[in-house]
């Protein structure tokens, strides 16, 4: 049995101004799973995510990615294994062309020449954006930029893909396109989201982060059916959505 894709134990963290965001987070995700991380605004989800590739440190606890500890000496490999797609694609697309942005990651790993080109085409192909390779990112639509942002991370062939609010601001067609892409990928997925229907559609399992700890860890459809639990953690289903009546694609 191989090491879990992600293993977090006892993670605690406080900001420089003294406010403590995480009080001891424990969870583990096996290879190939797709897991949603739910929680109200300000619960510390993004803070937690930033610990997964060593951007935030200085607290207490342990994070391991496929057995490798997140520590200063392993950062290069950790950042290859953990691919974080941030909420705002414009924060991730900072090069003049799509090709340059997707190549940025592998180039930092030392890949160059024809192998670099291969990686770029492979990653863009996986998100269905191969023909946009020489365009400027700001000429693409929001949904297209989202997908290119995912490609920039896929080009590094990560072990686990971490997405922060992947469906935010997407129109329904783009949402569906992104969902199709995520379903087709052969990689572990951790998705931070408010979008409960999206979580139900793509992730069989969900974690609820509340009060700085993992309050619940259960199959998504069970969590969404427990109204009292949702209310307790400020999670709300959209108007008219009944989880029990939905044909879930994740099951």
């Amino acid at each position: 049995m191989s090491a879990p894709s992600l293993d977090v134990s006892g993670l605690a963290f406080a900001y420089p101004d003294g406010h403590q965001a995480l009080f001891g987070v424990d969870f583990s995700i096996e290879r190939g799973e797709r897991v949603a991380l739910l929680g109200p605004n300000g619960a510390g989800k993004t803070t937690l995510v930033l610990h997964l590739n060593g951007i935030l440190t200085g607290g207490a606890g342990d994070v391991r990615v496929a057995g490798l500890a997140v520590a200063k000496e392993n950062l290069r490999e950790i950042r290859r294994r953990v691919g974080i797609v941030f909420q705002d694609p414009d924060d991730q697309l900072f090069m003049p062309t799509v090709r340059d942005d997707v190549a940025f990651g592998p180039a930092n790993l030392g890949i160059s020449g024809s192998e670099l080109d291969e990686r770029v085409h492979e990653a863009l192909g996986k998100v269905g954006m191969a023909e946009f390779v020489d365009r400027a990112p700001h000429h693409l639509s929001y949904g297209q930029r989202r997908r290119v942002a995912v490609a920039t991370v896929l080009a590094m062939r990560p072990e686990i893909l971490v997405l922060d609010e992947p469906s935010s601001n997407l129109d329904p067609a783009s949402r569906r396109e992104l969902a199709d892409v995520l379903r087709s990928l052969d990689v572990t997925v951790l998705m931070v989201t408010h979008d409960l229907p999206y979580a139900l559609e793509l992730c069989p399992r969900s974690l609820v982060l509340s009060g700085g700890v993992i309050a619940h860890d259960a199959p998504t459809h069970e969590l969404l059916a427990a109204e009292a639990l949702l209310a307790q953690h400020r999670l709300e289903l959209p108007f008219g959505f009944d989880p029990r009546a939905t044909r879930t694609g994740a099951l």
Partner: protein
Amino acid sequence: MHVPDGFLDVPTSLATGVVAAGAIAVALKKSRSELNEKAAPMAGLTAAFVFAAQMINFPVGVGTSGHLMGGALAAVLVGPWTAVLVVSVVMMVQALVFADGGLTALGTNITLIGLVTVLVGWSVTKLVLAVLPKRPASVVPASFVGALLSVPAAAAVFVLLYSVGGATELPFGALMATMLGWHTIIGLGEAFITAATVGAVVAVRPDLVYAARGMSQHLVLRTPDGQEIPATAVEVADEPRRSIWPLAVGGLGVTLVIAGALSFFASSNPDGLEYVAEDQGFIAAAEDSAVAGWSLADYGEVGGIPVGVAGLIGVGITILIGLVLFQLIARRDRDRDSVSA
């Protein structure tokens, strides 16, 4: 105003170039203790801020203009060594891309606006901090005073450099008085903006202010039921034990030696002091000075071969001094590095 090409003569430009290059080399080594992963973009932002601040021009008498320097602000935010790098980068980009400041005057501009303001700004800030309570908020008044004094200091060094190697002689006393006067006022403006910026940053993100390091309380992590969790990682940057004084003494020392040595090779036109002396009748007394006996003491203006020779000798001396100083600092650094490695 950034000094353009041709403002100061070749020996002075080269000498300040040596000082600047030496300072950057030292700063590169020593800034490694200040720069961590997140500090590089902070340095870049500070550089952009300093760049923007320097766009604010004030007309100063004698047909020049003064502007905000930003050296003190940079030192307080990212540490003195990184600040030297930050201001040098700003000077380089302004000279290369915006044609603001001559390329051959880069050494002069970096020395004045980079070294002097950072040096004076940081030293004064540290002095004031030493007498204030150890709280992050103390950085605000400290940086105010540091910035206030850094600007006239740079102006004074500029006048000194000009008196040594200026394109032409101007009355030294009058020039110094005018420059100091105006730049003290500019210093006030600089002090307000520096204090305001530092104050805003330290209130929200004290972790971003270098001068406030080691002043926040130690963070204690707790479990949900209130028990203390022992911290596994300690991320407190060590305050570098190395003092900036070797650089200060070295840099200013070289500059003063230049002033002294080159004054022997000064132009045959009476400089400001001599002009006044002639006027007052003191010149007869100076006639018997030992210097008059030197074959190079009176030489033609820039353009004649004899001047070239004198210039070369001047340059040679200053480069030698600069190299020796650099070696001394580097050796001391290597010894320290091998001890603390």
